[in-house]
């Protein structure tokens, strides 16, 4: 991608909204655009945390593998989200693995450059802190969800994802990322067969519209009432 495009993309990022044109130009010299295919690994857990990433287009999954090699997805990241930043600030290795959930484009920033921006521009720290706080909340909720029924876990996950999407991009009924049944199973900690059965039941009840990897929840309040959960903020 030409350097003009990179500068344009940097300018459009909420994260860099506090930077002057000169600073964006300076930053662009230390960034590049990376493209990922579905399931292509960007970094593995225990790789040195040398770069910080921002999702430009597409989506990324962040996961850990257990001792048997089974994946547990911790977070799905959407357009505009930053990752790898906190660990790059403190130094060390990535604690998780990141891969593309679909064809995805990212901005890659060298860790020392990001750190200097963080120290100089409060807006960078605020954006990062807000996104990190959201992920802590998500993981802490997962701790409790482990004891819920699988149906509730899947529902809460989808409602939460839709809530995040509405907060970020405005009102919608569509889950903004393409999820396979396996992705959902790896996120909520169940089998793909259970996810297939659950989504199929909800489709028959007209609670969701599931086509290929796209999921719609047309009437979120009806859905929440049927499952017996609060609408997650």
């Amino acid at each position, binding site marked *: 991608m030409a350097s003009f495009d990179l500068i344009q993309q940097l300018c459009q990022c909420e994260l860099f909204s506090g930077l002057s044109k000169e600073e964006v130009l300076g930053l662009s010299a230390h960034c590049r655009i990376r493209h990922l295919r579905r399931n292509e690994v960007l970094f593995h857990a225990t790789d040195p945390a040398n770069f910080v990433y921002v999702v430009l287009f597409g989506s990324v999954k962040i996961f850990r593998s257990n001792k048997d090699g089974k994946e547990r997805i911790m977070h799905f990241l959407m357009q505009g989200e930053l990752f790898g930043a*906190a660990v790059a600030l403190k130094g060390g290795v990535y*604690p998780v693995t990141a891969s593309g959930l679909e064809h995805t484009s990212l901005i890659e920033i060298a860790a020392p450059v990001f750190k200097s921006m963080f*120290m100089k521009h409060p807006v960078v*720290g605020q954006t*990062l802190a807000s996104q990190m706080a959201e992920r802590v909340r998500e*993981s802490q*909720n997962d701790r409790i969800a*482990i004891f819920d029924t699988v149906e509730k876990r899947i529902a809460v996950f989808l409602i939460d994802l839709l809530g995040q999407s509405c907060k970020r991009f405005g009102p919608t009924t569509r889950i903004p990322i393409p999820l396979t049944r396996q992705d959902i199973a790896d996120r909520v900690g169940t089998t793909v067969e259970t996810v297939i059965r659950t989504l199929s039941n909800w489709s028959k009840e007209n609670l969701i519209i599931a086509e290929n990897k796209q999921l719609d929840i047309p009437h979120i309040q009806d859905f929440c009432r049927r499952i017996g959960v609060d609408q997650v903020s």
Partner: protein
Amino acid sequence: MFSGKLKLYKTGVNGRLQIVRLASAGDLLGYRSLISDEPYSATAEVIDEAMVCFIDKTTFFDVLRRNPQLALEMMKKLCRELREAEDHVMDVAQKSTRERMAALLLTLKEAYGSPILGGGFSLGIELSREEMAEMIGTTQETVIRLLSELRSQGVVEIVGRSITILKEKNLQSLIS
């Protein structure tokens, strides 16, 4: 927090409580919800008479904006919290209740333990069996049974809510 101890817990959709962390002198509470501009997502309750200092939102953000080094420390703290929460999700999915019990005792020893004469560590925090169950995601009955097993093996000594770890290595071998 100036002194004492607090527990932070959340309630699941089934009404089950889960203690997400304990806090003692020097710990910071509530900052995550301020940062994400959301209501508090956990309840903080005193378990050992505590004294806390309140910092209002405006002052908090003002200090944070003017002090990048402090902002950096906050990020490290958030990073640790995220890591702990993710570890816990993996632990509950992978580890047996016995392993989680051993890990909890070792964590409490790291945070609140003090060496005693003749070897071993006294845990300077008194938790009910129910609170321990809420921390490792099990039932009170299972905690009572596991502690009783550890006591009969001479790994811990228990007087009421007070626990002393006598054989730390045995606990470590349970989780390794």
